[in-house]
Structure formats: C-alpha cells, structure tokens
C-alpha cells in the first residue's frame, strides 16, 4: 500500500496555501467583524497560525478557520502574539471586507436582517460565503440536518417576505 506524502500545509503545497490564504483571509476578517470583533484582522491571522501550527491533519481546513474566528471573536480574545502582523497596510482599497459587503445589495442585507439570527447565520455561510452544509455544521457545531433545516426555514421566511399575501410555503 502506497503511503501518500504529507502535504506541506493543510491546503496542499505552498502555492495552494497562498491561493487559499488570498481567498479566505479577507472573508475571515469580514466574518470576524460581523461578530463584533475589535481586531478582526488579528483574529483571522491567529486562526491561520493555529491551523498551520497543528501537527494533526484537519479534515476541513476552511471550516476550522471559520470556527476558530467565530470562537475568538465571541470570546473577545485579542491574540497578543501577532500584533505586528496586522493586515491594515496590506489590504488594498476596494478589496477589503467592507467593500465586499457593499457589493451586496442593500435590499439583500435588509432582507437578511429580518431573519432570526440563528437562520441568518446559516444562510450567510451557505449563500454568501459559499460554504457547504458539512462545513457549516463543523463551524456551528451542529448536525448537518439542523443546518439544512435552518436554511430551509430561512428560505421560507424570505418567501413569506416576498409574498406576504400567501402562497405555497416551502416547508408546507
């Protein structure tokens, strides 16, 4: 039986790690900011360092990063070891998380705000962040079936908003 060599990073080789970092970092910063983190850049960087520091392989690195950012942001713990690695100077204008959120229509944001926070969280991760059901279940630490239920209920609420007079309910 052939033993596969251990990849250099959780995302593969160095080039793949750079691509993953460039994609995920701004999104993680935005995700941390959504949780009211005062230093979302530091939290996102700390999440990457924690992931890379692990010797045991992580099954879903993206979910691990999102979950770590969520935990760090919720506990309001500011990582003190990485203060010199802030991305404030690295982010280019127009590519920051705020700019990305501005890409969403105001109507979309308003519609999502009307949803309950539980459903909004799952819907945001599924649609806007583009994560899979399994990854969301890892991040929120809930079963996949619960994630699906929340997304379907969010969809039903959105449909009710668009068609308040009635219509066929998605879960009916």
């Amino acid at each position, binding site marked *: 039986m052939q033993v596969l060599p251990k990849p250099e990073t959780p995302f593969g080789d160095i080039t793949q790690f750079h691509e993953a970092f*460039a994609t995920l*970092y701004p999104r993680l910063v935005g995700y941390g900011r959504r949780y009211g983190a005062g230093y979302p850049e530091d939290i996102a960087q700390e999440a990457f*360092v924690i992931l*890379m*520091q692990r010797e045991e392989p992580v099954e879903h690195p993206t979910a691990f990063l999102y979950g770590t950012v969520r935990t760090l942001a919720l506990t309001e713990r500011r990582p003190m070891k*990485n203060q010199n690695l802030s991305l404030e100077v690295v982010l280019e204008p127009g590519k920051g998380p705020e700019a990305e959120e501005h890409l969403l229509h105001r109507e979309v944001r308003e519609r999502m705000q009307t949803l309950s926070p539980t459903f909004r969280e799952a819907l945001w991760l599924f*649609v806007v962040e583009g994560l899979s059901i399994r*990854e969301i279940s890892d991040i929120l630490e809930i079963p996949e079936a619960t994630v699906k239920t929340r997304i379907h209920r969010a969809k039903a609420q959105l449909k009710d908003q668009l068609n308040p007079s009635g219509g066929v309910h998605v879960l009916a």
Partner: protein
Amino acid sequence: MSWLEPARIHESAEDRDLRESLGQLLGFSARSFFDVEPTSKMIALAEDLRREALRRRHTSRRKPVWMLLAAGLPLALAVSALGSWGFQHKQRADALTAAVAQKEVELQNMVKTAGERQVQGTQPTLISAPVVSAPVLAKNTTQHGKVKARPNGELVLEVKTYQSPSLDTQPVKGQ
C-alpha cells in the same frame, strides 16, 4: 481552485440548486469567491504566518514521555507503598482474628471435656453407694423422729406440719 476541499467539490446537486435559488431570492448574484489571485503583499503575509506557525510548533514542544513518567513516579511509589502497608496490616488482622476464633473453639472444647469428665467422675460414687437396709435406717432415725417401716420394706416418714403462730390468730384491738 486546486486547494478547494472535497466537502465543497463533492457538494450534491441539490445543495447547489438550493444555494442558487436562495441567491435568487436574495437578489444576490452568486459569483465565485474562490478565484482570487494572490498579490505579493498577501503572499508575504501568508509566509509570515506560516513561519510563525512553524516557530510556535518548534518552541512549544510536547513534554517527553519520560518526563511525565518521572513526575508521576513519586506519586506512584507512595500509592504502592500505602497499598502494600495496608495489605500487610489486613493480612495480620485476619490472622489474629482467626487465632482468636481458634482459641475460643479450643476453650469451648476444653470446658466441654472438663464437664464431661466431672459427670463421669461423680457417677461411679453414686452407683457404688451402699443401700441402707430398713432396720438400720430405723435404728439410725429413732433418735431424730418416728420412722415407721411397712412390711414390704418401704419407709414411711412422719411429716410434721409447721404452723406459724403469728399467722393463725391476729389480735384485734377493741374486742
């Protein structure tokens, strides 16, 4: 993107359709977030973080097993010593209890055999006691009381009833 995870690559068509329909409901144009070309600054930051992770991995080494064993050795020795001490005391107490029980049994046996010997020692004297004949008995008892002998040899002792004078009469005042 080559780094994408299997969880997202192998996403079911149902989930993709659901995401698309939700995007339409929200008026959100689903675009690929995973096609970002890394800039040189982003690559530099990624390398910084990777080095930091490696540095932490090397500095925060796990303690070797022998150190953990050495730390736990005194405790293990103390526990084993206490255990053996307790075991020895328990064995000694069990032996003492057994000896006391045996002594009690021996004492009971001794008491029993002594009692049997005493009974056996008194029985021959009773058996060998001489039968006193009626004339001899009559002769011996004439000094103390009247003894009548019946023809068949039976002895008849005269019984004197004792009467207490104080119980017969009781003086009553005023009569």
